[in-house]
């Protein structure tokens, strides 16, 4: 596919990177030569320098013949203009980023009215992700699919985990009553697609696919207890903070700390059940008074990423079970494991993931990109000619960068074992490293 990415910031860069690794033809547009140089040095894509909302620039970027246009500059107006122009010029699908989540809603219109397939709000997506993580405290990552019947969870193996130093083969044998599939291990900076002979180590972040009802069991196996969440504290009344509070306030007790007077009054007005507190996040006395020790989860989403990290570390130190911080730099995300914060969330990465999902729709059904891990979840449908249906899973010679996570047959969910056979019409969830996507696809042709 020919894909034009407008805006070479974090979202644009990340989207272009993944899509170019999948061998799509990518053209990146940005007005800054310095940004484009970074793109040119790191990615095999074409770059066009110019203002992305100008027709002349779009023409140079060959938008007329583009299959997809992704407008992800930091300006909503520029993104909107770029998408509308692209629509007129004949680009097939258009996606835009909106910083103001109410860009369209305020006016009571839909993006589709302007020929824009979808508007993506990074803040909203980050908030959703935080909420998912809070609901499943023991997991570092959590992705639902197959209408919520299956979950992919990330589990960090700490000292107490009974899995440490054991082979995957033996673990599977011992816990055969809890069907699960270990699909990836993040160790240091590497992502490993495990085979039966791989051994779990302390500090590994293991990604496991399991039926949703078996997830608590699964967590128990790994030495984690699922905690019931009752009290949540949010630091920072940003768009993300507000959204998280709004999503959670009906189920749990939420406290939100915001330093600005105006913002805090506004939030207190909008959030009916949340207790809004005006004060500094660095003020330990305040946090203590508000009972940070009794919190089940702590979310730091101020604009200052270093503040977020430090206050999360503080919260962990004081015994909060789950601390989640929002960071601006994607480079920090792999550090979460090392520094002992349960999860680092980045709104731009969340947005990029969502855009990738949208772009791939209809081609391959992608489900998610995992934070800090170089792997993708995709969903494939087998047909009667597919190589994948010809042999039991064990004998498939599946590419080493890919692994079959689960099989959805009609309404039934199957966690595959060695002698499982995939049938025609099965929906198969595969986890794969980006470089192996094409090899994996061949098994389903």
């Amino acid at each position, binding site marked *: 596919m*020919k894909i034009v990415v407008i805006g070479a910031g974090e979202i644009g860069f990340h989207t272009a990177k993944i899509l*170019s*690794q999948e*061998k799509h*033809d*990518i*053209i990146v547009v940005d007005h800054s*030569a310095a940004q484009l140089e970074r793109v*040119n*040095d*790191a*990615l*095999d*894509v*074409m*770059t066009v320098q110019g203002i992305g909302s100008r027709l002349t620039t779009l023409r140079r970027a060959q938008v007329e013949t583009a299959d997809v246009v992704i407008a992800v500059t930091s300006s909503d107006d520029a993104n909107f203009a770029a998408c509308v122009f692209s629509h007129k010029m004949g680009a097939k699908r258009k996606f835009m980023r909106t910083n103001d989540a109410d860009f369209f809603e305020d006016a009571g219109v839909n993006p589709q009215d302007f020929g824009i397939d979808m508007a993506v709000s990074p803040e909203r997506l980050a908030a959703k992700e935080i909420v998912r993580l809070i609901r499943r405290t023991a997991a570092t990552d959590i992705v639902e699919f197959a209408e919520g019947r299956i979950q992919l969870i990330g589990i960090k193996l700490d000292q107490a985990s009974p899995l440490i130093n054991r082979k995957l083969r033996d673990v599977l044998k011992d816990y055969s009553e809890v069907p699960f599939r270990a699909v990836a291990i993040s160790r240091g900076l590497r992502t490993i697609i495990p085979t039966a002979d791989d051994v779990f180590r302390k500090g590994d972040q293991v990604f496991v696919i399991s039926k949703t009802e078996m997830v608590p069991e699964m967590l128990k196996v790994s030495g984690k207890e699922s905690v019931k969440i009752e009290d949540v504290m949010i630091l920072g009344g940003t768009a993300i903070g507000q959204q998280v509070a709004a999503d959670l306030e009906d189920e749990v007790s939420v406290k939100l700390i915001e330093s600005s007077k105006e913002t805090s009054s506004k939030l207190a007005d909008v959030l009916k059940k949340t207790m809004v507190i005006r004060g500094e996040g660095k003020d330990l006395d305040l946090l203590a008074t508000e009972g940070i020790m009794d919190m089940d989860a702590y979310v730091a989403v101020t604009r200052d990423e270093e503040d977020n990290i430090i206050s999360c570390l503080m919260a962990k130190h004081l015994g909060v079970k789950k601390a989640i911080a929002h960071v601006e730099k994607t480079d920090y995300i792999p550090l979460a494991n090392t520094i002992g914060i349960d999860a680092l969330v980045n709104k731009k990465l969340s947005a990029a993931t969502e855009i990738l999902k949208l772009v791939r729709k209809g081609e391959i059904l992608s489900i998610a990109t995992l934070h800090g891990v170089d792997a993708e979840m995709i969903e494939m449908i087998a047909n009667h000619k597919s190589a994948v249906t010809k042999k039991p899973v064990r004998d498939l010679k599946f590419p080493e960068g890919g692994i079959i996570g689960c099989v959805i047959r009609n309404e039934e969910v199957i966690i595959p074992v060695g002698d499982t056979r995939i049938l025609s019409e099965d929906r198969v969830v595969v986890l794969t490293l980006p470089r192996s996507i094409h090899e994996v696809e061949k098994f389903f042709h």
Partner: protein
Amino acid sequence: MRFRSVLSVLGFILVVVGILMSLVLPVSLYYGGSDAYALLLSALLMIVVGLLVWFFNKKQSKELGVREGFTIVGLGWVVASLFGCLPFVLSGAIPDFTDAYFETISGFTTTGATILTDIEVLPHGLLFWRSLTQWIGGLGIILLSIAILPALGVGGMQLFQAEVPGISVEKLTPRIIQTARILWMVYVLLTVVQMVLLTAGGMTLFDATCHSFTTVSTGGFSTKNASIAHYQSAYIEQVIIVFMFLAGTSFALHYRALRGELRGYSRDDEFTFYAILVVLASLIIFLGIPIESGESLGKTVQAAVFQTVSIITTTGFVTADYELWYPAAQWILLMLMFAGACTGSTAGGIKLVRILVLLKNAVNQLKMLIHPRAILPVRHNGKSLEQEIIVDVLTYFVLFVLIFVVSTLVMTTLGMDIVSSAGAVAASLGNIGPGLGSVGAVDNYAHVPLIGKWVLMFCMLTGRLEIFTIIVLFTPTFWKR
């Protein structure tokens, strides 16, 4: 430095060049095959060694950094030439290793300097291989590998920049592999058209093929001792003039023209400069040809144009002994050796875009003396260039001149006269071939002392790979962790 990643790509390059060499076998066998054994053995050796190196390192990551890129390109050319000279040595045609290596490097770098005193005694297979090395080297050994090896990705861009001439390399398509393929497609097209035209002019198919190979690559190897003068055909000379000129033009412009954008040529500053320069230089050289040579006016004009185009595109074919011309004409030719033709072509030399930038910058600097606060951008194709590019061009120029000065010093130390030394170094550094003095139009490089040959080989390689790629390998910073 990830040496094993470097090895894996090097292995692949060897296999590619080895396969190309094996294509010479049928030609050799058709003409009696006295050199078939040497070619077969060399090609097999190349493919087997390449496959082994590739096989044992193929699982390495293809994510190549800047260092790996430079190392692959630098070593790639050295190693390919090492294997490429085997047929000459094994067949006994050029028994001396230094001479054989010189001939091969001169081939791959499209220099066209030869140590052979009698070219025509070489068997046809070797003659064909000699021309083929220029054709492979014209667009680049690495570019060919990029076009074939799909997994290079970003690494490909690193290699591309290290090998393709010019100040800023232009991607024609989103993916590097497509750009590489397009360039090769244009290249093959030019070659085939020229082959047809030369055959129509009475050349044998063998000669037409060999000469097309060495024209579009701006190499300049001929299968005849007297070069193009051998044919004494105005038509053949005209065809070659046109194709040398086209080979000295940016291939990106040709590609656009093939897609219907003919105005791309006239809109390009560098091409305009190139065209004007060819006309002006031809005129001066025409005036510099002594009248007593007794040729008709038309023939003299053609000789002037042929030599101008041959030298500015760094091809190095000759139709006349330009050393009999007035000194001014010879001086212009020497200057053209330095200048070279356009970015993104197969020509060598400094490249006209750099000369343009240098001149425009000099003019600006002079204006700045009068208007110290003026902001005067250096423009190219209507766009102002960033300061970094100008510094890059200046650095390039300084290094080029420095290498020229030092190498010429070494040559004179070895006992060669000044004109021959300077001519030989200029002709090697600019990848032209024939120089001045004892290495002039009708001479060869056989008499150059051993050390001198190695110095010239270094010059050819450095010149072909745009100075930086080779020089950076010799800097301590490059090897520091």
